[in-house]
């Protein structure tokens, strides 16, 4: 029972923080609320037995990516309060679309045949052991392709950010 209460608290914090990300007008505050959401997801990863991914989530997402976000925000944001978005009837369309999506996905979750009850006992060995074995055997080619993708992203970011200087 304690696990369910814990899940509920973390889930509520995650949802509220995610809502605050898109509600507040200050981009820096948005970024900080996003960090809260990412932390909550990392905690849920821990409760699901994905220790390595929880650590990576905190290091890469809440650490590296959010620092990058904050750098760009402080670089671009002239300290004026952001004006409200001129939406027209786009807001109504977005709300209707989101509601439709929510109902649709909730129906899928409620009606599909999902494994119920407690989670099965994990196989012996640590989480990172299983992950490493899968990553370097079954998923070796995608792993190498991902490294090439990261290299391309680095080169692309350098070229884009350098401008026309050279």
């Amino acid at each position, binding site marked *: 029972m304690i696990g369910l209460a814990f899940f509920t608290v973390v889930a509520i914090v995650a*949802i509220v923080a995610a809502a605050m990300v898109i509600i507040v007008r200050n981009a820096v505050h948005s970024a900080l609320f996003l960090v809260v959401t990412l932390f909550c997801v990392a905690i849920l990863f821990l*409760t699901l037995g*994905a220790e390595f991914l929880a650590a990576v989530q905190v290091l890469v997402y809440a650490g590296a990516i959010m620092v990058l976000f904050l750098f760009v925000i402080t670089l671009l944001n002239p300290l004026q309060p952001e004006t409200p978005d001129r939406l027209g009837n*786009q807001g109504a369309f977005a709300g209707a679309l989101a509601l439709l999506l929510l109902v649709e996905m909730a129906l899928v979750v409620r009606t599909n045949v999902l494994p119920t009850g407690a989670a099965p006992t994990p196989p012996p060995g640590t989480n990172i052991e299983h992950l490493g074995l899968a990553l370097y055997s079954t998923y070796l080619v995608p792993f190498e392709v*991902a490294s090439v993708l990261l290299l391309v992203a680095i080169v692309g*970011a350098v070229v884009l950010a350098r401008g026309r200087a050279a």
Partner: protein
Amino acid sequence: MPATYITTAPLSYYLLLSVVLFTIGVIGFCTRKNPLIMFMSVEIMLNSANLAFVAFSRYLNQIDGQVIVFFIMTIAAAEVVVGLAIIVAIFRTRASIDVDEVSALHG
């Protein structure tokens, strides 16, 4: 030593949380004009998908879901780096980052 977990919430709870987070991301992406906030909404959506992947990985007792999440994180990092570089480049040319004013490619 077998690992012990405190998971007692059923799988559908995790999936419903994932659905709610994804919807929040969709609303944010559709209603904000600041591309930085739009990027953050995309991150929320990616994270909700990650959560669903990890939950399925736990309840189906297969590691593949976590491997996929690993790749999603890699791609999200690449996407953020390139996207923010594009935003900086746009800001440098027109000193504004409202997405409605970036319409040079509009036919």
